[in-house]
């Protein structure tokens, strides 16, 4: 274990932020442990303890298996280019509020591919985990992150999850970015979803609510994401959630969205959501790929379709699409 040399630091160093360049990283709170994963490091080995960046682990899965406390951190410098399918234990068998932080050479690296393309890169059944800094590459019919909510095991619940500042790239063949089975209080913030294109019926869906969970997502926060150049955008029927500051690109460089934003579906109606401050280009209507719940509030979104009665002359939405 590393000595606690300073507190309240950032990792890695940020230009212009004094003291943020602690070379060995830092624990977020004193009782937590930081594990290092660096597949490309000559000393990388899953037999290491993983607490020394000079003797890191080779896989994220081993770091997940090595966790010791709530609030432990996993710092990931590089990942096996063949990919990894990481599975967390259920919430009663692992720790909560764990961070997995990508710190590659660019803001959106390392690249996290699935080893088995039909399985998620990260299969998450634990509470309060925080995932940031990765570029997820999804191919074929798998997903990048699957957030369980009682669908596989009653104790497998991904609630209070924070997924922020990642790129989810469908690599022109991938189907799903984030699949939520319905957990509540999940935050999906400042991510980019791009290039999701898949030949299966309905095409690819970058942000999707999958079947089998205990309920629809509730009190989720979908904020500041970009949905670009894909078959669909966010098909996310939910209740009491906030969807704001997202940018949708219905017609991309290659692909066009059939469903742009659906906070409610006919088969699984969501409702009571607040949808504001988003950018909604194109046909602002149900036919155009937008759908809200009966009591959703769609107000103050920027829409180009001022011909619709639900859009003011100034381009701001005043009602859900019809």
């Amino acid at each position, binding site marked *: 274990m590393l000595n606690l040399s300073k507190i309240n630091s950032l990792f890695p160093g940020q230009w212009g932020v004094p003291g943020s360049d602690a070379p060995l990283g830092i624990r977020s709170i004193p009782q937590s442990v930081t594990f290092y994963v660096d597949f490309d490091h000559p000393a990388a080995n899953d037999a290491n303890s993983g607490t020394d960046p000079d003797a890191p682990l080779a896989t994220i899965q081993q770091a997940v298996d090595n966790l010791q406390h709530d609030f432990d951190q996993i710092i990931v410098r590089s990942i096996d280019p063949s990919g990894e399918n990481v599975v967390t234990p259920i*919430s*009663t068998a692992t720790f*909560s509020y764990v961070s997995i932080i990508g710190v590659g050479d660019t803001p959106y690296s390392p690249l996290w591919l699935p080893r088995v393309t039909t399985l998620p890169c990260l299969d998450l059944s634990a*509470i309060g985990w925080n995932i940031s800094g990765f570029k997820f590459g999804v191919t074929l019919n798998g997903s990048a992150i699957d957030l369980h909510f*009682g669908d596989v095991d*009653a*104790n497998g*619940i991904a*609630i209070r999850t924070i997924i922020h500042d990642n790129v989810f790239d469908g690599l022109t063949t991938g189907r799903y970015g984030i699949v939520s089975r319905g957990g*509540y*209080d999940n935050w999906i913030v400042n991510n980019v979803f791009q290039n999701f294109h898949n030949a299966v019926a309905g095409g690819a869906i970058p942000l999707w609510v999958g079947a089998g969970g*205990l*309920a*629809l997502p*509730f*009190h989720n926060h979908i904020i500041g994401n970009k949905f670009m150049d894909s078959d669909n955008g966010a098909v996310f029927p939910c*209740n*009491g959630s906030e969807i704001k500051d997202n940018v949708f690109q219905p017609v991309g460089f290659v692909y066009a969205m059939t469903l742009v934003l659906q906070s409610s579906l006919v088969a699984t109606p969501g409702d009571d959501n607040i949808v504001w401050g988003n950018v909604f280009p194109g046909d602002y209507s149900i036919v155009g790929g937008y759908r809200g719940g009966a009591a959703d509030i769609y107000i103050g979104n920027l829409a180009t379709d001022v011909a619709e009665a639900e859009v003011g002359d100034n381009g701001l939405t005043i009602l859900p699409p019809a």
Partner: protein
Amino acid sequence: MTDKEKQYVEELKNATTLPELKAVVDKAKKDGVKLHPAILAQAMDRIVDKR
């Protein structure tokens, strides 16, 4: 809230583990009762925060 809904809300409050809670939710679904997601979240919070 109907009597049936009230009954399921009470059962949720009495659940002490997530499998017990899931059993209540599944039973309510089969019974055609839609539970308020906030009540489900409260019941779940109570269980997971007590660990």
